[in-house]
């Protein structure tokens, strides 16, 4: 598959998500989205905040570039739509697209596993308790870059405000079959999708807001173990920024580094659009 096919597929999917948003002529906005972090935007460790009830948030163009030691380069884009379906509860669906280069088969592109998840915030932060949330997700096999099995993930999130800023702790565990280290997919471009899976992952992040600039600076340290049987713990660190560009738009960017065997560098940039659909809000019409 050439990069053109990849681009076309991504374009179609993006337009589908955008169309869902644009169908309604009545778009409004969440207030300060930059302060409510999302997984991967730009850090893997997120806060224990859900989007407001009835809000929709479209991660329109979250792009991630990574390059491991060696020739492998991976571009990933995962458009994602989140919806505040219940108080302190959000649903999310995402569909990743990958384009790889430097593997034996040359340039390849395609989609990975469909991600469905729900996050429920148990409580908001007070002087007595940190904010705490539970998250459950499922990765559904969909394209050549995804795993062939279904994987379910359960996670917990806590956020506590301290003098240094907000501290977030995330931990998650994935249920599903491990993938043998000898599986040939690890040597192919398809490994780009498999690398996204981890048996477990735990991270801690600190962020600090510049409120008058509507900007959030953050850094994290994440440990994870791959689904590859016998894999070592991989340590990653990253830093990033989220910035409220306009009432409806927040942008983000980040840089990451893996300390594992791959010695991978990664860059990410994205934009999130918040809006509402009057038809999703129960009113006494």
């Amino acid at each position: 598959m050439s990069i053109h096919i990849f681009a076309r597929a991504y374009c179609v999917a993006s337009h589908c998500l955008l169309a869902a948003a644009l169908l309604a002529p009545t778009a409004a906005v969440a207030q300060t989205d930059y302060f409510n972090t999302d997984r991967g935007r730009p850090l893997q460790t997120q806060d224990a905040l859900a989007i407001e009830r009835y809000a929709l948030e479209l991660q329109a163009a979250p792009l991630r570039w990574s390059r491991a030691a060696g020739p492998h380069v991976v571009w990933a884009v995962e458009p994602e739509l989140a919806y505040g379906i219940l108080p302190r509860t959000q649903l999310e669906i995402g569909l990743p697209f990958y384009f790889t280069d430097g593997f034996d088969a040359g340039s390849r592109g395609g989609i990975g596993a469909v991600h469905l998840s729900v996050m429920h915030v148990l409580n908001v932060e007070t002087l007595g308790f940190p904010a705490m949330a539970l998250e459950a997700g499922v990765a559904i096999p969909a394209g050549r870059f995804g795993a062939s099995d279904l994987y379910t993930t359960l996670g917990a999130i806590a956020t506590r405000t301290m003098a240094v800023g907000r501290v977030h702790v995330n931990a998650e565990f994935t249920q599903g079959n491990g993938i043998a280290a000898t599986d040939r997919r690890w040597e192919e471009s398809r490994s780009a999708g498999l690398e996204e899976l981890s048996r477990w992952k735990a991270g801690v992040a600190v962020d600090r807001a510049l409120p008058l600039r509507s900007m959030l600076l953050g850094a994290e340290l994440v440990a994870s173990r791959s689904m590859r049987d016998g894999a070592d713990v991989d340590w990653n660190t990253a830093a990033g920024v989220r910035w409220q560009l306009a009432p409806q738009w927040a942008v983000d960017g980040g840089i990451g580094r893996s300390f594992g065997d791959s010695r991978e560098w990664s860059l990410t940039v994205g934009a999130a659009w918040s809006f509402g659909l009057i038809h999703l809000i129960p009113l006494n019409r």
Partner: protein
Amino acid sequence: MNAFPGGRAAAAITLALTAALPAAAQWSTVSEQFYLPASHNWVFRAEHPAADRLFNAFDYGHAILYEELWARPRGPKEVLERDHYAFITRKLLVNPPRLPLEEAAIAPQYSRLAPEAKVMFEWAHLLHRQLYDILADNRLSESQRDEQVARVVAYYRSRPDLAFSARPKSMNLMEGQPYSLAFRKAYPKFNGLIWAYHWLQVGLYDALLAGSTPDERSALVNGAVARFRAMLIDPPRSMPYIMPMTAAVAPEFTRRYPDAAAIFDNLHSMHDVISDILATEDVPRSRKRAEILLAAQQYRDDTTEVLTREAWIGMAIGMGIENQGGPVVGSLAVPPTPTVELGAVMRHDASAVDPHAGHAMPMPATDSVTRLADSLTRAGSDQAAREPFVNALFRLLEDPAVLQRVVVDSSLRRVLLDLAPLMPPEHRGHYEAMLRPPPARPERRSTP
């Protein structure tokens, strides 16, 4: 399957995060909600960007105030009265933020003290902004405006756990509590700044309603903003002397949308209440969250310290618009001259209590009659505009003490009698009868 070594570490970190917490820690599940999507969203921002940006700066003022009072309770007063005030008035209000601010980022400690109150304020501020959008939307007819306002207010009230009551509340709730007045006495300048914020926040509604064309609206909004800036020239003397009330500062808005007007008066009162709770030493720190939540509950319910609509309007007018920052429409060329002391307390009167609401309540004094008469005269020939003043006047005159004063004060009675032609024909006779002095009693002859 591999074990999860990170789990123990995560548990340890989470435990550490919670271990240092005070014993009185409390669980909060307050939740936020998106605001009502509509075609008028963000119209005010587009049509009146200067005023819109000011409101972003106002968010900062409220947040930093609460943060300072809570986080540094024994800190020098100059931090707020001088340092923060200077930053806000010389920098922030001069070049306001272009986006709404995140209060939790400005006031991280206060936000954790009472997240319920924080979300209540945010929900009411969203209502503010949605109403500005509606009234600034030149595409809407008058009837469409009314319909949209009703829709947005209904949406706001669909969250009873967050919404301020649409029934007006007595000043006793704000000024008659053990902690009352603590903030305004200790921080008169910052308190005046907050009242100036509230003056503009409610006053802009009448500026938007008074304009019949986009240009007129812009001119009126700009005039209101200019008047607000003039309040900052000589603080606190140039600022409102008492809390601006919507019925006085925005009488037309109050007449058309009384529910929204009452909501905003309750919102602004609770801003003052929280300032007092945080500023007073009479409420120990361990009780402040509980007091804030109690006040929040009292401002949400429809029973505590409820006023009749007439009494509320009468009280607002009776307090004197000149003491509340002056009128927004037809702004004075020079700042009004207040007739009360800075931070004066409103007088209360149990006669204004809503008999259907229960609890005690406040009321205005007889000089309110004079001010009501003045407002009634200025309302012109518009029967609808006169109605709230007429109702308030009747309500006041039902008070025997007020009536007695009118009877013995011939000049006041003369003023009121001159208003008789402005009364609705069906009430005119009753009105004149109320003002008629009682027949003189025959003198008792002394018996030898």
